Structures are given as C-alpha cells and as structure tokens.
C-alpha cells in the first residue's frame, strides 16, 4: 500500500514563526501536492510538484513556499506564520504514469494552529 507520511499530526506555532511541514511518500511517485482544508471551503491547492526541484503554484500560494530536493519528500514552508494560516494541511502524491495517474494518495494531515 502507498504510504504518505506527514511528520506531525498536530502543531501549535506563534505568529511570525517559520514553520516547516514535512511529507514523505514511499511509492516513488513523481507528483506531490499540498492542500489546505477549511470548513466550508473544502480542499484548496497550495503548491504542487511534478519532479525533483520543480514546483508549480496552486490556487492559494501566497504566504507559502515549498521545497522538493528529493523525489520522496515535499516540504511546505510558512515563512512567517499568521493566524489565517490556521488550518488542516493535507499532503498527497500520485504517479505521473498509468491509467489511474489522477488518483491521489493522501497523508493523515497536519492540524496547524497559529496563535
């Protein structure tokens, strides 16, 4: 089974702190994604990456950056956390190839609270 692991289940940070959310997948997937999920707003795409060192902005990239130095790892960085970044963050991965390459595999999420 594909496993997507997010390093923290719950995280509490203060405004202005730099925050790193880590995600690792073990299926050699080319594509990796970061979404945030808020009540009433659903899942919104922050950034995604098709390959090592490549990144693409999603719908709401402001206030975030990402890093993909290795194929299995995709990090989301909040340069200076703000209270409006309190949210559930979901990492996902998928294969670039195959008939079902749209199928995303999700991590368990990180609930981030910024105080």
């Amino acid at each position, binding site marked *: 089974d594909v496993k997507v692991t997010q390093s923290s289940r719950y995280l509490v940070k203060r405004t202005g702190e730099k925050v790193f959310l880590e995600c690792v997948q073990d299926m050699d997937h080319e594509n990796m994604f970061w979404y945030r999920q808020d009540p009433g707003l659903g899942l919104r*795409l922050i950034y995604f990456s098709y390959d090592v060192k490549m990144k693409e902005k999603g719908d709401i990239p402001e206030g975030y950056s990402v890093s993909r130095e290795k194929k299995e790892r995709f990090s989301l960085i909040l340069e200076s956390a703000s209270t409006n970044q309190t949210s559930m963050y979901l990492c996902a991965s998928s294969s670039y190839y195959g008939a079902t390459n749209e199928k995303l595999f999700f991590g368990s999420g990180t609930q981030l609270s910024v105080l």
Partner: protein
Amino acid sequence: EDKVVQSPLSLVVHEGDTVTLNCSYEVTNFRSLLWYKQEKKAPTFLFMLTSSGIEKKSGRLSSILDKKELFSILNITATQTGDSAIYLCAVVSQAGTALIFGKGTTLSVSS
C-alpha cells in the same frame, strides 16, 4: 475558471436510508472525476469515472457520470453509521494533474 460544486453541503439521515450526493462541474478539457471519503484523517479513494453512463459499484456505494450534463452522483444504499464522513468530489482537466475539489458533503448517519 474551473469549478466543482457539491450538494447538499450537509445531510443527516437514519440508518438504512438511501442517499444521493451530487457533484456538478465546469472544467476545461475534462479528463476524469474522482470521489473520496474522508473520516477523521486522510481522504480515501472511492471511485474514478471517465466515461458517461458506466456505473462504478463497490458494495453499497455506486457512482455514475454524465458528461453531457456535467455531473456525477454518488449513491449509498442501506446507510450505516460507519458511512458518516465527508464525501469529496474532484475533477481533473487535461491541463494538468492537480485535482480540483468541491467543498464536500458532510453525511451524518444516526442509529
């Protein structure tokens, strides 16, 4: 702008009821539509639909796509309390592989 609209946003039913969840979409160069179930943690994959009129079935869950009218439905028969979850609909356009999600339908099944 691509968008996915799910309805209803929330639903409360009794065990044994049948429910129908709706998903309509507007997307450039539609490629596929996916349904996910999310309980407390990671969304888990239910179905992927690419062709109109072909029903996908898994136990008490089934789904069908209408590419002419641009919608999909997810049916759950004989609901159980374990079906309580957020059901997410997402579409993929040929422009890229990033999924566009709807806001989800929160289903609560009471015993």
